[in-house]
């Protein structure tokens, strides 16, 4: 058998979902006995059959990717509960296996996949989607590129009709239907406990799940950013969000302002002071980089 053919055959078996009891399935999706598939490529030894040897890799694959996925989405787990989360993780990773050399990108397609699979979050689909967006933004903000921040004087006096300000590549601005930032912070605070009691941990877990279930919708605009290499969530006013989103899309400052205040309730005569305060904050946080930012 040629190398490519053997690797395809083995990868199919290794990446095939496990049974409920976390063993290798007895049959392939087209009904072929897995013992036959294993027997054709793998030698048995005096202790293990071909099936059992292949099963070691099959189980390791799933334990590894499920562990990595769980670490990346603790908020989604809290919303769905362990049983539903595990089912979602297995379905997602079966349909969207890793296409990256790094496990960091395991969840990169989760948002788009979950949009098409509301059945995995019955009654909480929007909440689950919001949490996935937030948790993925957090991953991106953690190790995204940073460029040299623009000094405020670089854009003071510039023509707003021509000025295009870019945001730091690590910043993600999100408009959410649920305040999942508070929930995620609470979950992370809980998991930071060093109490070793299983009963305590179980109670904490149940508390988290019920807190998630009680979470009421509330529109939230959020910037996921970082300061001194730590990721933070910053609540934004709706206009602030719209301006930043427009700037991220490459609009001129003029156009971004126009879009930001399009349906704003902020009285026209108060807008200038809002804008001044926002810009002061954004610049202080080093959010702006020049159009041709130098990588750092």
């Amino acid at each position, binding site marked *: *058998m*040629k*190398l*490519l053919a*053997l*690797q*395809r055959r*083995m*990868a199919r078996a*290794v*990446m095939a979902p496990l049974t409920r009891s976390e063993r290798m399935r007895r049959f392939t999706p087209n009904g072929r006995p897995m013992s036959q598939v294993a027997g*054709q*490529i*793998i*030698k048995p*030894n*005096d*202790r*293990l059959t*071909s099936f*059992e*040897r*292949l099963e*070691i*890799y099959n189980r*390791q*694959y799933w334990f*590894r*990717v499920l562990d*990595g996925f769980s670490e990346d989405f603790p908020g989604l787990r809290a919303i769905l509960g362990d049983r539903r989360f595990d089912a979602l993780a297995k379905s997602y990773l079966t349909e969207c*296996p*890793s*296409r*990256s*050399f*790094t*496990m*960091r990108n395991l969840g990169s397609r989760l948002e788009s996949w979950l949009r098409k699979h509301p059945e995995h979050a019955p009654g909480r689909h929007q909440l689950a989607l919001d949490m996935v967006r937030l948790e993925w933004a957090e991953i991106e903000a*953690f*190790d*995204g*590129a*940073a460029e040299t921040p623009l000094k405020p004087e670089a854009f003071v006096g510039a023509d707003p009709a021509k000025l295009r300000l870019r945001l730091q*590549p*690590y910043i993600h601005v999100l408009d959410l239907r649920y305040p999942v930032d508070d929930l995620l912070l609470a979950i992370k605070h809980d998991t930071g406990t060093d109490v070793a009691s299983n009963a305590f941990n179980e109670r904490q877990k149940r508390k988290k799940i019920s807190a998630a279930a009680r979470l009421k919708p509330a529109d939230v605009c959020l910037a996921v950013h*970082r300061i001194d*290499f*730590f990721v933070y969530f910053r609540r934004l006013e709706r206009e602030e969000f719209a301006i930043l989103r427009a700037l991220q899309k490459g609009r001129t400052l003029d156009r971004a302002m126009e879009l930001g205040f399009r349906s704003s309730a902020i009285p026209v005569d108060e807008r200038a002071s809002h804008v001044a305060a926002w810009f002061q904050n954004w610049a202080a946080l080093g959010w702006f980089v020049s159009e041709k930012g130098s990588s*750092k």
Partner: protein
Amino acid sequence: MPANRFNGFTAYGVGIGLRAPHYDHILSRKPVCDWFEIISENYMIDGGRPLHILDQILEQYRVVQHGVSMYFGSAEKPNREHLRSLKTLVRRTKTPWVSDHLCWGSVDGRYTHDLLPMPYTFEAARLTAQKIREVRDYLEVPVVVENVSSYAEFHVSEMTEWEFLNEVVERADCGILLDVNNIYVSSQNHNFDPFTYVNSVPAERVAQMHIAGHSRYRKYILDTHDHPVIDPVWKLYDRAIQRIGHTATLLEWDDHIPSFDEVHKEALKSNKFLASASLAAAV
């Protein structure tokens, strides 16, 4: 073979794997450690804290890159994005050599994130060697390949694992990262004499050694890197050092990671064997 063309003519001593739970200890206490091995993929990112930490480590310590997903043995071409990102990191760390595993783990662009065993065939040796050459030429640093632990053997194999290793490194003209724990684990899983393996390795190509702990199950051993090194592995290491000479040695500890001092102390046990090899060479 303390320094050779496969490890950039360096003469490193005993190092440990750089792991996140030890960051604070290393940066605040600045313990003496000859060198650190990093998992390349953990730092093949665009920015953020991991790179910030790495830069601080690089200011004070020697760092060598060890990869887990180049998959020299995968039948597909090297991933260009992976190569670009790896080269960026190589320039940052100035690693004297880059290591990765003699295994496969991806096919048709899908990644298992595992170190899957090779079929020991001449076709696989040829393709693997070609890929190692391509990667080395692109990265412009010596590339060394590590033998992996395995739990399965293929019917199509045409040679032993050590013959395959020799075939690949000769064809690729590359170095070897000899992992004696992996040899021990595979010898137990496949019923061969680990000393035959160690005695068959071309000593002049060994650039680095790995030692580690593992977990024994009823019917097989799993390479878990979560225990101290056991005596039979030290004996194998001793034999390898006698043959190869004083070689850069690294202890891997990746799960249930104890304190920095405990990991370092375990690694430094190898000094006993390295010293006797140096003495023997001097005599």
